[in-house]
């Protein structure tokens, strides 16, 4: 236990250091790519919100939203990089209704994707359960044929314990 606690304590110690390093690196980049950072901050706000509000264990929401969000914003980002990489042009893009609308609608599409995928998967899984039960039943029969009824009898105690 002590060992486990020690090792988990060590990981906790490493995570803030990593985050700190990442933050420092980003801050160091700001002076050189301030226009990009400004555009990304404004355009990727839905992703930031998704990352902050996602309470699920898998935390896939920000990836899902972020992917679509960036897909909507990427023409403006490329324009900035290949056009005038200046703060004024960046402000022009940020204040462009078309750019922001595209970016946010795409993020909304990402949310939509995030919410609609699990019910579809559930429906598919439910549909395949019967098939799975049939496969498992044949597997049970095969085990009984190969090892005799004892394999069932010996496991019966565990099953009874389950039911209790």
């Amino acid at each position, binding site marked *: 236990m002590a060992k486990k606690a020690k090792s988990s304590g060590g990981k906790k110690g490493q995570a803030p250091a990593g985050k700190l390093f990442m933050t420092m690196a980003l801050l160091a980049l700001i002076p050189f790519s301030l226009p990009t950072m400004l555009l990304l901050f404004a355009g990727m706000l839905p992703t930031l919100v998704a990352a902050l509000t996602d309470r699920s264990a898998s935390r896939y929401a920000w990836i899902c939203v972020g*992917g679509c969000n960036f*897909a909507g914003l990427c023409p403006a980002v490329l324009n900035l990089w290949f056009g005038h990489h200046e703060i004024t042009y960046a402000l022009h893009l940020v204040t462009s209704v078309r750019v922001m609308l595209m970016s946010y609608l795409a993020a909304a599409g990402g949310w939509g994707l995030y919410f609609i995928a699990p019910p579809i998967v559930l429906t598919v899984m439910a549909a395949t359960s019967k098939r799975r039960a049939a496969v498992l039943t044949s597997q049970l029969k095969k085990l009984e044929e190969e090892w005799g009824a004892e*394999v*069932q009898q010996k496991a019966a105690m565990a099953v009874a314990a389950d039911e209790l």
Partner: protein
Amino acid sequence: MPNDKEKGSGAVVTLRDRFLIFPATPLPQFATPSAQAFAAEDRRERDKEVFALIVKPGYTARTQLLRVLKGVDNAGLMTLVEWGTVDWPPAGRKVMALVYMKPLGGCVWDPKAGAAFKRLDEGEITRKVIAPAVAALKFLRAQSLTHRAIRPTNMFWATPERDRVVFGDAAAAPPAFEQPAALEPVESAISMPAGRGDGTIANDIYSFGASLALLIQNRDAAAFSNEEALNRHKMVMGSYSALAGEARMPLALVEILRGTLCDDPNERWDTEGMDLWLSGRRLTPLVPRIEKRAVRAFSLSGKDYMTARELAMGIASVWDAALAQIGESKLETWLTRAMDNKGKAEAVAGLLGGDAMDPERRTAADTTIAKVCMLLDPMAPIRYKNLSVMVDGYRWLLPMAMANGGDVRTIAESLMRELPKAWYETREAYNPDNSVMDSGFRTQKGYLDRGVIGNGIERVVYEMNESVPCLSPMVVEEYVLEMRDLLPALNAYAKRKGDTNPALPIDRHIAAFVAARANFDVERIIGDLSTNDDGRKIMAMINLLAMIQWRVGVTGLTSLTMWLAHIAKPAVAGFHNRDKRKELEEALPRAGKEGNIVELSRLLDSADERGADIRGFEEAKQAWLEAYRSVRDIVEGHEDLREEAAKTGAQIASLISITIAFVAISVSLVRMIF
């Protein structure tokens, strides 16, 4: 004419491919109560006059004696030419056959033919009877063996001229089994015939002296109808008085008769004394030591006893009623006042003291009486209930009782209650041999205490006596004396009973026989025979027989192996895997036909195969359990797919989203470039 060569005819039985025995030509003049005699012929030396003794089933032949006597040419012994087991058609089984050189002068005493011993003069008796007898006794003593069958009816004239007497067969029955009580020392005479034990050369010397005394008087040993009276006479007045006292014995022979008939075995002449006498040195005749008489008799069940030895005999004869009559200090008082033997009185008081009604004492009453008898007559055999056995006679009494339906229980009880130990404790002088024998009895008690197959009374029988053939009903007809004979005997049994015989091949007798005779470690396998698991038990039997086959190298045991393959089904069922079982069921008959028990054992009991089967079964159980739970959840609707669907859905959505991002980047880049 006894010296005529009897030619055999009819059916022939062959011993060791050399000696022909003719069952249709009996020779009653050479027969003994335990063995029939038949004409025989030596194929290599047809002029040699031989005859065969066929030991009757149920009698234990003395193989230790046979091994030593084979081929021995001694002036006083009938020459044993060959011995071994033969198929004996009249009995429908194997029996022990002993082939002897035929004594050509006939029997010295033949009560059936009414022949009488022709009076010889003293010189002739010395030359023709005593001299060869001394030669025989000296040889037996040198070999640490005893004859124990010296009696007029078993003494023969070796030549047609009748110039030399030889002792007849001694090995066809347990020691002294056929001896008339008159020819045995008192302690041996009051023992059960099968329980007289090997004894010492002193017993043989006594029997010879007694035989000589009766032959000189022309008296029949069987004429002493009242054995008890004779024994009491011997105890009180001495054996010389009982056997020769009333007759006029030749003066020259009185000395040797008194010397050989001395009742104290320590004072009795030995072979050196007899040799000295033969060479002409005359010794002072021994004066019989008269048993100390009491000043008043001890009355027991209406009979009066004047000596302690007689009283011990009387107590043994009224066993159940004895304790009440010797208790309450009656015996102690008699020993103190009438016998003036305070030491014995105290010892008896120690045994009989305390509350006679105490349940523990009542349970031990039989042991107490046995010990009282030992104290009163230390020379006497161990007496216990209806048992009367010399301490070295257990090894002969037990197999005889077992083979003939005797009272084995009482014998086992006496061993369990450590009566031999009590007997040794009452010895007046220390004898290192006694310590060795006592230790042997402790080992036997250990076997009796364990009781499970491979131990018990059966083990004791085979451990105590190497002459005892295996008494299992399965192989008793095959006269199995040694390990190498066991598997062929079982094979013959399997052949008679067929391959589908449901009986098991190892019973208590066979297990005990193997445990006692094996010169390799079988105790672990023997231990497995007592398990309640049929599969393990059968596997232990097959492994044991395989080990014997491997050790002794017997092959061609097809019937036995087929039988084992048939009964091995529970052992096959020990495997969980059905494919393995099927494979074994196909392989077993093949191994059976080859007669190879070792291969059968390897197939059924390979440690690797067993280990793999057990591991596979454990994995199968786990897999079955998991599959069963999944099916149950699906069928009963307990399966919770939502969590898994949410996780999988989110993953899929993320994947699609990232793909869209890459596509968008790629399209935008292309548009920028072109």
